[in-house]
């Protein structure tokens, strides 16, 4: 009995020492180190903009105050950065990244070129949803109300057939009966916006933040009508605008549209490669969470019209995994719209 008590005491001291060491390690892990952040969105996009704004707050809040280096890695619809972060980036805690909201969806539908397992990434946080909205230019669009888009042909601009700016309106045409004609090929959302302003197209189904942040005059001068949005839950800025899935006519359509909408809600995710040291993961999760809640950062994002509704790593990961566990019928339907056509035999 005495032996057992001694053993228990030694064990307790040992565990306490280990825990202390772990805490110490977590706090000191990044001291004097550099954290390489890879951004799937490239130097032009909002991913890079968010990361740049967050940079100094990450240094401030990640224990050990690491220097942050931002490496834009656009390409292949986000696959390049995702594959790199999973397979090639350093797994010693000195690399992390912001990947596109479609990582789980791409794995679920078996997109060619996916070389990662969504579940195995070290999830850090999601800074908030990336909601798309249907914005129509009032002076050129024949549709003025949400009812009109089911009756009148509206010309939308899109960046390409592989992009959400084409896929989501196409799905809407096929499921809820909208009548969009989609013109593809604009190099970036900025060019779509320019085409909207010069009347070449009459609207677009794309990022809400891109309007809120960078096209404030459109809202101020009441030039656009925001008629639908993409998320599972309505964006807090647009409580009266219905989500696309709310227009579904039957259960099967609703399941499918919710599956597509989940990516929007998953939003702007931050991850590290799989298998990084636990101390690093702990420090990163704490650092990201605290940075996103720093009052100065919150005020800056608000001022600049950048979305911020942080979601913990657990919730974000669960949401991503729930996308992957969708019903086979939903996945099959998604493949039809989202996968590239195979070559002719």
């Amino acid at each position, binding site marked *: 009995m005495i032996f057992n008590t001694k053993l228990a005491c030694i064990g307790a001291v040992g565990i306490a020492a280990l825990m202390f060491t772990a805490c110490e390690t977590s706090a000191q892990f990044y001291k004097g180190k550099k954290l390489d952040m890879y951004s799937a969105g490239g130097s032009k996009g909002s991913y890079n903009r968010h990361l740049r704004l967050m940079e100094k707050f990450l240094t401030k809040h990640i224990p050990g105050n690491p220097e942050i280096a931002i490496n834009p890695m656009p390409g292949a619809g986000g696959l390049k950065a995702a594959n790199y972060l999973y397979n090639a980036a350093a797994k010693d805690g000195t690399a992390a990244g912001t990947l596109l909201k479609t990582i789980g969806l791409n794995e679920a539908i078996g997109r060619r070129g996916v070389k990662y397992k969504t579940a195995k990434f070290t999830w850090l946080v999601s800074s908030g949803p990336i909601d798309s909205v249907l914005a129509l230019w009032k002076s050129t669009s024949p549709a003025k109300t949400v009812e009109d888009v089911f009756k009148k042909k509206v010309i939308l601009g899109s960046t390409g057939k592989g992009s959400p700016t084409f896929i989501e309106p196409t799905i809407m045409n096929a499921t809820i009966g909208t009548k969009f004609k989609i013109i593809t090929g604009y190099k970036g959302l900025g060019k779509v916006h320019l085409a909207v302003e010069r009347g070449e197209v009459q609207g677009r189904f794309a990022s809400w933040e891109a309007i809120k942040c960078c096209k*404030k005059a459109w809202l101020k001068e009441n030039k656009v009508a925001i008629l639908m949005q993409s998320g599972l839950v309505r964006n807090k800025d647009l409580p009266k605008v219905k989500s696309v899935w709310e227009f579904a006519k039957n259960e099967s359509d609703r399941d499918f549209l919710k599956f597509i909408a989940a990516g929007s809600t998953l939003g702007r995710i931050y991850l590290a490669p799989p298998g990084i040291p636990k101390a690093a993961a702990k420090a990163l999760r704490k650092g990201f969470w605290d940075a996103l809640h720093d009052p100065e950062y919150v005020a800056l994002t608000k001022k600049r019209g950048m979305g911020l509704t942080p979601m913990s790593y657990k919730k974000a990961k669960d949401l991503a995994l729930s996308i992957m566990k969708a019903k086979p019928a939903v996945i099959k339907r998604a493949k039809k719209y989202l996968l590239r056509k195979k070559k002719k035999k």
Partner: protein
Amino acid sequence: MFDMALSALDQIFDPTRMMFLVLGTLMGLVVGAIPGVGGLVGLTLLLPFTFTMDPYSAIAVMMGLLAVTTTSDTIPAVLFGVPGTVGSAATILDGYPLARNGQAGRALGAGFAASMLGGLIGACLLAFSMPVLKPLVLAVGSPELLAVCVFGLSLVAVLSGGAVLKGLGAACIGLLVATTGDDPQTSQLRWTFGTLYLYDGLPIVPLALGMFAIPELADLAISRKTISEDAKKENFSGQWDGIKDVFSNKFLVLRCAFIGAGLGSIPGIGASVIDWIAYGHAARTEKGAADTFGSGDIRGVIASESSNNAKEGGALVPTIAFGVPGSASMALLLSAFLILDIPPGEEMLTSKLDLSYSLVWSVAIANVIGAGVCLAGANYLAKISMIRIGILVPIVLSVVFIGVYQASRVWGDFAAMFLFGLLGWLMKRFGWPRPPLVLGFVLGGLIENYMFISVERYEWDWVTRWPVMLIFGLTLYGILGPVIRGFLGSGEKKGVILRSRFGSPEFSPASMFSVAIILTFGTFFYKAGEFEFGAQLVPRIVTGFGILFITADLFSQIFFKIENVSGTPVKKVQIFDFAESFDHLTGKEIIRRVCVFIGWALSVVGVGYVVGLLPAVLVFLLCYMRFHGKESWQLVLIIGISVWLFYLLLFQFVLDVHWPHSLIGLQFPVLRSKFEIF
């Protein structure tokens, strides 16, 4: 408006802000002179520091950097035939031949002076057009952009020199390469060969460095002559001649600066096209250009350089007026604006007009400072052309290797550069003009894109828009004008009578090369059939025409002999074909030296894959100078280690570039976390 402009000038002349402007300018000069690196890397580096600055200082440092990368990019273009940025590709067509003729100082002087004037004119245009910016930009739709791109493509004929059919064939190669990657119309992947590298198309940096840098460096390494060895004498006070050249061609500078600023202000044209269009314009309109452009005419340098600096002013138009970046650098600038709470759009033209004018002043002042610094060093730089090739080639090639990796930061960049390097070298040897290939590449994607948007949106009504008809009219005039003038007897005026004769077939390595290109086109034509209609249309048209052009050229090569029966000498001009004389070498020796050069180049990448690119560069510098250049160990160690340490300082500690992961670095992550170069 003038109050705002003066207030902005007052803000910029604040001593601290001027210091930032000078700092940005000096940094811009450094990054512009390094092939493949350019303003984007420099701006990425600067960006974090600007967030804590006031908007005027941030604008000063960023615009200082961006405005002058196209000034210093003249240096590698003239001295080594290596484009410093994609915007200076056309500069090499005449700049490099001038250096080979012993006139590097003159070419640099003209390039820098033209850059400065072009930059100033661009800034002035921006300043005066500010109030009418918005309606102007809104008037240009996809059909107009398509018309401008088609006009640009019509310059292929000018850039082909005396080999029009080969030039058209080369343009078809460029157009075909431009169809690589994700097709936005059908979402099909074309010619990606299962790699992610080509998913978004081939980056232009490996293609441009492959087509221009590798063939020139290979030829220098094979001939083992210094850059200006064939010249009768090097003129080291030529920079003043160059400056005088610029002032005696002031209307050319003005026209090309207008082209640069005008096209730069249209989002969707792109920096890599503008210098070609300005060069083509000069080649068409300048007196006697047909005989001298491409073989060392200073006006070619002036045209290209004045346009590419002017475009920076123009590119600010869509950036500040609409928040639509005209280039990747402008995109980064825009993201800095948003973080600094400088909202692009209406406000920049109204309540924040002073900020817009501080952009204008920054561009203008940076151009003056940048050109001043470069001109002060022009004659010293010109002496580089006298350095022994055993020392120069490894130094320049190392920079090219480091630079090309920055294109998309994957090993595929090296593979692409080697492939196009080999193609470029073969084209050069067999008398194929290379500029049309690059022009085809930069315009190919745009033409396909705007064509589909125009047809999808307007069906065929877009053809009847008056700006489209006007530009198409100009294009037709540009193409048909010389043909008509030719028929009116300009050949007779020169007293040249050429007669073609049908003869027995003659095969040469050049005809074998043409056959290989035809077969490649044929293969791609066949494989394009696997795509759906929308995705196969352009590749099939391009390869079809390619086969037609090259077959016609091949037929004339094999069966026809051209004789000059008049006795009057004919000056045959091949644009940028400063043919390296290998007369002193046997065929066997040339092949041996080519293989040795390829071996050296591959060894850098091979060793780099194992130990890291920068360590491999050290090994390459030392080994090449010692064993290939036959330099003394003492010299090799002093130069090799000094140059390497300079690279380490510049790329690792100043520019903080990304290095490829090596096997050693992957095996021992600790090593990489301590020393990023592994």
